[in-house]
């Protein structure tokens, strides 16, 4: 097993773990955390793909690496918007969950 | 020459690791927030100092060495600030702990 395979297996576990958190946690803040854990796993898998593609004197394929940077920025923007909605909901309704409005 | 430098590096980094270990033990074992912080910062600043010192022997050129020292100084500053803030919160039988 090479180092990048270890990280590949780690990324698979991270995706599963984050998915679990996403399903079982009712509070949106915890869901947001779970999203970011999954995101970390997905990006890591892309990093492993990049590392495997090392060639032409580069330590890794630069295309997936660049895409991960773009992805991280999108993930931050998504987190910021979620947090904004969450805080405003808390302010308006005094609650920060989505359960009771079913 | 390079053997001597390598030896110095190993010694310094080991010393640094010891201080980190001691600091972590203090963080876990000491009874109240203030003494925990005390253990943590004292040991960490010294620990990182020794690690940086050890790496200085391996630095390629003056600029790289200065960067390492800058890392240490910035960590000192950040650590001192955060410790002050935590201690300030913890002192008047703070909201947590």
């Amino acid at each position: 097993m090479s180092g990048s395979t270890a990280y590949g297996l780690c990324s698979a576990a991270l995706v599963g773990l984050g998915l679990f958190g996403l399903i079982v946690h009712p509070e949106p803040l915890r869901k947001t955390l779970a999203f970011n854990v999954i995101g970390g796993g997905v990006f890591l898998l892309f990093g492993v793909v990049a590392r495997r593609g090392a060639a032409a004197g580069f330590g890794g394929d630069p295309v997936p690496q660049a895409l991960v940077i773009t992805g991280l920025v999108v993930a931050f923007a998504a987190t910021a918007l979620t947090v904004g909605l969450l805080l405003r909901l808390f302010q308006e309704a005094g609650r920060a969950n989505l359960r009771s409005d079913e | 020459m390079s053997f001597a430098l390598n030896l110095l590096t190993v010694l310094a980094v080991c010393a640094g690791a010891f201080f980190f270990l001691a600091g972590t033990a203090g963080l876990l074992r000491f009874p109240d927030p203030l003494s925990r912080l005390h253990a943590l910062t004292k040991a960490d600043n010294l620990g990182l100092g020794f690690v940086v010192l050890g790496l200085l022997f391996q630095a390629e050129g003056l600029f790289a060495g200065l960067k390492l020292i800058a890392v240490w100084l910035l960590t000192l500053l950040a650590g001192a600030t955060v410790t002050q803030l935590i201690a300030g919160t913890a002192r008047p039988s703070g909201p947590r702990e």
Partner: protein
Amino acid sequence: MPNSATAGGFLLVLAIVLPVTGVLLSLVLGGRHAERVVLILMPAGLAVALAIAIEVWRSHNVLQYFVGNWDPPLGVAFRADGLSAAMLVATALLVCGIGLFARGQFTSPGQAERRAPLVFWTLLPAVWGALNAVFIGGDLFNLYVALELLTFAAVPLVSLDGRAETIAAALRYLLFALFGSILYLLAAVLFYGAYGTLDIVLLSGRIRAEPVAWAAISLMTAGLLAKAALYPFHLWLPPAHAGAPAPASAILSGLVVKAPFFLVIRLWFDIMPRMPEPAAAQVLGILGGAAILFGSIVALRQARLKLLIAYSTVAQIGYLFLMLPLALTPEIGHPWSTFAWTGGILQAISHAFAKAAMFMAAGLIAEGIGHDRITDLAGIGRALPMTVFAFALGGVSLMGLPPSGGFIAKAMLLTAAVAEGQWWWAVIVLIGGLLAGGYVFLVLARALADPIEPLRLLTTIPPSRQAVVLVLALCAVVLGIVPLRPSELLQIGRPDIAVAGFR
């Protein structure tokens, strides 16, 4: 498929650059200028969309553009086939209609900038640009960015009024959309890891029937379904679409949910045309059928008009996915398969017009009488005849009655189902039509009833706004009268069939 940039490819760049410019200008100029920027933008964007459609029609080929002259797989390609062109034109028409309609609702009186108008007039071109980017995207990661652009443009529209319940609806929508995005991205990573490209055309040449391909396709489909609100991922849709202001509901229900559906089509028909999987297509069809039955029945039980229309969207999305089991037959390119494919796309477009008209009609009714309780609509048919007529025309298309785009779409799906021996889909189409008839007549019966005391409108609704709604509803009808030309356009550039197969 051409392997270099084609003449007229620069039009594709304009289809994205124009709306994006609108977003930036609206934001920086602010105040009342935001509205003017969009009003200037609308005809220009419509012209670009029409030019693309004409160019595709004239050359009878796919328009293609390599951004920065970098060929895929290193660079990103934009491509417009007949399907893209049709969606671009439909989007442009709808955005123009919605923009004209929204003028009466989102104005900043005086010099001071108001929150809701600025946000609306900045996000309207943002939705437009994002949709265009989805329709012409040729690269899976670029499409990911486009989908995120769409999400961030659509979510704030839901909570524009700032009430707690719409904020909760927006939050739920955002969580579902992000869930879809992350699955989509994971699938894109798997595609790249296995085949070394994210370009749709290159990918379709390299993909093989193996576990990694199936995993990627399943994940991507699941992610897109969450964004398209197909049953059982529909939970977020009704509160979000019903809670948004009417013009925003129109764009969300009419167009935004069609973008992920469009990508499902790209995935199943363009990326893997030679590997049909009837069992998987049947699963998607079953979800579609469940959506039709569930959405229609719940719509029948709604007390508020906007929620009824929103649940009807859940049902109508189901029809889109009926096309998959009917078109993904083992012999793709078979006339009946093409028939079903065309029916599905026509359903997407005619539903867009019909649903936008219905939401805006509901908005005008709510403005006029201050609520949208269905039981208290009596007399509105006399007070706002043009609006109620537009609502009825939209309803005709939803039911699938002639003459309307919805009729042709549903008839094509029905015919294909019968001809292919998959009669159970035909039954569902028919039941769905009956149920749609039920909820539309429920509303119309109340609206046309004589009120106990004469209905007084709170404000006067300008006829121009009513006319816009009527024109959009008429577009849905017209699609049913001249359906053959557009459906020929739709076939241009389909990799899986010869155009000649369609008669």
